[in-house]
């Protein structure tokens, strides 16, 4: 857990340093990172006094929907299927609110919200890969900030989906959950540095564009 917290701190400092140099969509990525760190910090503090942060998780999961929508809207505006996904985002947003109010109480983790969000984010991410294939640019793929961002997001959300399913399965069969905890740590250790790397690449791209 210490590694993850260290990653959070480094990522927070990193995103604050780079914020002014980022493109608009990546500024929203930075905002998403700050929101995540804020949420995790509150959860950490509350855990210390043995209080659950499920209410915060509900708010966080609802806020993530428009944030991901804004990020992907800037990338995928011109894609033909995007208006449908846009509608799906709206439906998911409504679903999250209704779920938090009426279905899953704020005293338990908003798993439905997070899974619905993961599904729509995975769809957006795959659409973005499709767009990249249709409109390749000349710079090498490993130097493209959007590729790293998209890969990190796809990796995180597809993994969290799998982890959620496995958690349910382990719960039902009374298996130990410690293995899953490690999977979660590995997932975070890949996701956040990849996000940081994409921020750095984006700042570099923007610098190059400005100097042109």
């Amino acid at each position: 857990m210490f590694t993850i917290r260290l990653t959070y701190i480094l990522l927070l400092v990193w995103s604050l340093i780079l914020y002014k140099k980022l493109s608009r969509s990546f500024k929203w990525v930075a905002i998403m990172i700050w929101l995540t760190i804020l949420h995790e910090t509150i959860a950490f503090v509350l855990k210390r006094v043995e209080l659950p942060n499920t209410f915060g998780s509900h708010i966080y999961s609802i806020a993530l929907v428009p944030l991901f929508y804004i990020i992907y809207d800037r990338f995928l505006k011109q894609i033909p299927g995007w208006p449908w996904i846009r509608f799906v985002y709206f439906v998911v947003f409504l679903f999250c609110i209704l779920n938090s109010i009426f279905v899953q109480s704020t005293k338990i983790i908003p798993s439905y919200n997070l899974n619905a969000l993961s599904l729509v984010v995975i769809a957006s991410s795959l659409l973005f890969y499709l767009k990249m294939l249709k409109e390749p640019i000349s710079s090498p793929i490993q130097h493209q900030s959007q590729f790293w961002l998209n890969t990190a997001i796809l990796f995180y959300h597809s993994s969290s989906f799998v982890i959620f399913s496995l958690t349910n399965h382990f719960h039902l069969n009374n298996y130990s959950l410690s293995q899953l905890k490690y999977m979660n740590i590995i997932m975070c250790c890949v996701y956040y540095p990849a996000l940081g790397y994409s921020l750095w690449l984006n700042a570099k791209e923007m610098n190059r564009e400005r100097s042109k």
Partner: protein
Amino acid sequence: MVLMSSFVFVFVLKYRQKQNEHEQEKQQIKLEQEKTLAEVELEISEDVLKNISHEIHDNIGHSLSIAKLTLHGINAENLPEKSKATLDILTQTITDLRNLSKSMNGNYIRGIGLHEALLREVELVKASGKIQCTYQTSSGDLRISENNEIILFRCIQEAINNCLKHAQAKSLHIDSSVLNHNLVVSITDDGVGFDTSLQTAEGIGMGSMKERTRLMGGKIILKSMIGIGSTVTFEIPIYIEQS
């Protein structure tokens, strides 16, 4: 995780393949554009040479012949009046030659800009005495990119030449304006007109004008009615450098 990594790996391979194909396509398009540009440049220089040849033959050659004849007819009695007439002819010839040189010189046109070049072209057409020519502008001294200015000017010259050669028009009107981020230049005559659907419409320099306009990222619109006249309109996108 293995599945995800495999997916990303396959994607990267596929992306690189697409990137190569895209680069090849871009190279191909660039080559084609360069080829077209070379063809157009060749065509323009041929047009220019033809124009020079006609001007030398029709105007300057003619004036010099008259000057020579006048000099032949000089004797002691008519010396003052004949020498004055010869001087006038030679002055006119020098002016014609200067105007012709300016009209053919791309660098000169680049320097003065499209608006000024058009004003001078109109003066040249008027001076030929073949046709009434007017020029109206609401775009002012708007500058587009230098290369586009010269290409557009050559297109307008081509349209004017077509009108002088084929239209049998009494008057010619050039209008320049800005519409929806486009510089719109139209050349209208009151000549015999022609059927735009016929092949001959393409033959009278239309193909080359179309190609040149395409190179500028613009479009050309041709309207004509038999017995009423024709209008050629060029719409060129502006990347404004207002002077």
